[in-house]
């Protein structure tokens, strides 16, 4: 397929459709509403399900319901709406049904604003809802990645019977870039739905989907099963991209849009002769701790750049295991850091390194 100029929100919605998403439930919220609008138009055209729910609370529970039926189903929202979905996400996790959610983050806390932010990192990556669970979290940095990861999200969700959340920010939802959409995948027939799905207990025993286990030992069994699944996910699904880290003295670590901003800063810094490289974590859960650990063993300092007050910073600290100093540069409230701001931070670190030598 040829590249098209696509807006992020439209791109992931269409990508989901082509990945075989059979049902979409959502509630309008800026800056992701174009996704809902795209679904509103396209899903009925294709004979699939689109429904604007009465709230994000209802939307995620509709997703939960459709997921129980064994279809590919998704929702998308933005930060305040995603907060409302946390209850449902926890139930989906506890029931071990696959579902995909896209969070196009905006400034907060509270009603905040509609400008791009990465303030949901803790909420999304660390679970957000109640109980022990981890959604798989993928952080795209371009419209193409938004497409690719959305498609992949359905596969991962079905492979592990888990939630996959695409964590992007308002700028990715709103920007346009050339990108290539995948071929249209065929939607499964009812007969092809998984054997655990609720499709009516015809010629088989009833299927029960639940997340309540009153016996603590039985609940613990579920928790252990989830942990075993997480171990597999942690072994197989770690993703990251990196740039010019081979000989780097300084590593910048940033995800999503801040990763792209940092990339520009890193390139300019290289032109100035600063030996700096970039690690852009893509899977935020599972986090590339091992790669951070390796990098920390080679560089002199780490700079973390985020569009929040330092939420991924904690994970970098875990991976660093105290090896090298970590500094943080963040913009909050919906402000995107500019490449020259990041460059300035890199220069400061370079002078510190120079001074200590």
């Amino acid at each position, binding site marked *: 397929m040829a590249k098209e100029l696509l807006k992020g929100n439209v791109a992931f919605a269409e990508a989901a459709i082509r990945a075989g998403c059979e049902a979409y439930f959502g509630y309008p919220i800026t800056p992701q509403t174009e996704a809902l609008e795209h679904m509103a138009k396209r899903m009925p055209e294709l004979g699939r399900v689109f429904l604007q729910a009465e709230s994000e609370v*209802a939307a995620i529970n509709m997703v939960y319901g459709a997921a129980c039926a064994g279809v590919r189903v998704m929702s998308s929202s933005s930060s305040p709406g995603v907060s409302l979905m946390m209850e449902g996400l926890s139930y989906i996790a506890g029931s071990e049904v696959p579902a995909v959610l896209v969070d196009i983050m905006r400034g907060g806390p509270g009603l905040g604003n509609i400008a791009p932010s990465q303030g949901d990192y803790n909420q999304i990556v660390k679970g957000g809802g109640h109980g022990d669970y981890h959604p798989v979290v993928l952080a795209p940095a371009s419209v193409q990645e938004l497409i690719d990861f959305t498609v992949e999200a359905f596969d991962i969700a079905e492979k592990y019977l888990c939630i996959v959340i695409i964590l992007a920010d308002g700028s990715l939802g709103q920007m346009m870039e050339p990108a290539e959409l995948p071929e249209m995948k065929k939607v499964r027939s009812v007969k092809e739905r998984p054997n655990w799905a609720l499709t*009516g207990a015809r010629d088989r025993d009833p299927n029960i989907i639940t997340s*309540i286990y009153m016996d603590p030992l039985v609940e613990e069994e579920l928790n252990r099963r989830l942990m075993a699944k997480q171990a597999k996910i942690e072994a197989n699904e770690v993703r990251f991209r990196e740039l010019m880290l081979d000989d780097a003295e300084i590593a910048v670590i940033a995800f999503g849009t801040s990763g792209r901003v940092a990339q520009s800063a890193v390139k300019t810094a290289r032109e100035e002769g600063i030996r700096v490289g970039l690690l852009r974590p893509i899977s935020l859960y599972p986090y590339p701790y091992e790669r951070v650990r390796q990098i920390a063993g080679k560089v002199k300092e780490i700079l973390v750049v985020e569009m929040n007050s330092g939420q991924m910073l904690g994970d970098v600290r875990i991976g660093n295991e105290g090896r090298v100093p970590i500094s943080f540069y963040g913009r909050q409230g919906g402000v995107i850091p500019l490449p020259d701001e990041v460059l300035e931070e890199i220069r400061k670190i370079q002078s510190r390194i120079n001074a200590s030598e």
Partner: protein
Amino acid sequence: MAEKEWIETLIYTKSGSLTELGTHYCPGCTHGISHRLIAEVIDEMGIREDTIGIAPVGCAVFAYDYFNMDFAEAAHGRAPAMATGLKRVNPDKIVFTYQGDGDLASIGAAEIMHAAGRGENITVIFINNAIYGMTGGQMAPTTLPGQRTTSTPLGRDIEVHGFPLRMCEILSQLDGSAYVVRRSLHNVANIRRAKKAIRQAFEVQRQGLGFSMVELLSSCPTNWGMSADEALTWIEEHMVEAYPLGDYKVSPSIAVTKKDEGR
């Protein structure tokens, strides 16, 4: 004249749409009766293999253990939303929710309103026993004025807690509602009427006519502090007055047998 030949025939036995398992409900609790009625209707309609139930949070949280069919467990109050998701991708299946008064009328008030408003083609069995059973007898949105509960120890004071919600009256106002009726489980005659209404509600769904709900006035002997029998009498003497039985919305497209009346 030859002597008549008599054969001993099974008149009544436990429904095949229920599992073998005994319920965890307290002795005399009418949840068991409503489960039975639903199961019998499903048997009679021959739809067990096409029916998917949604259990609530509340005493009936384990309803899926007792019904012999596909079932899912919803978050508190969200059963209508979950049923919506399930029904939309399984349009040829019969999807019903089973919800108590806290689940449906309090935390899930938005979900039930909008499911009805959309004319969602699902059936809701609404158990109104005027109290929170599972958590041990606190005030429900349907608790009667003056009724003592553990969170209204001096009786529900309408100045403080406001008035009970009458869900049939509310939901029947919505254009998407096709069949909204209130029945009671306080005696045999009413139980039989309740069953007919449940049958009608499932038929409404089968015919794709829209949202259907049967509210069942139910007892909670344990949290009301009464014997099972006294509790049924309390329904008759107090609840029926506050929650009049009857047909609140019957879509004209339903071919009703006029004998099936609530009162």
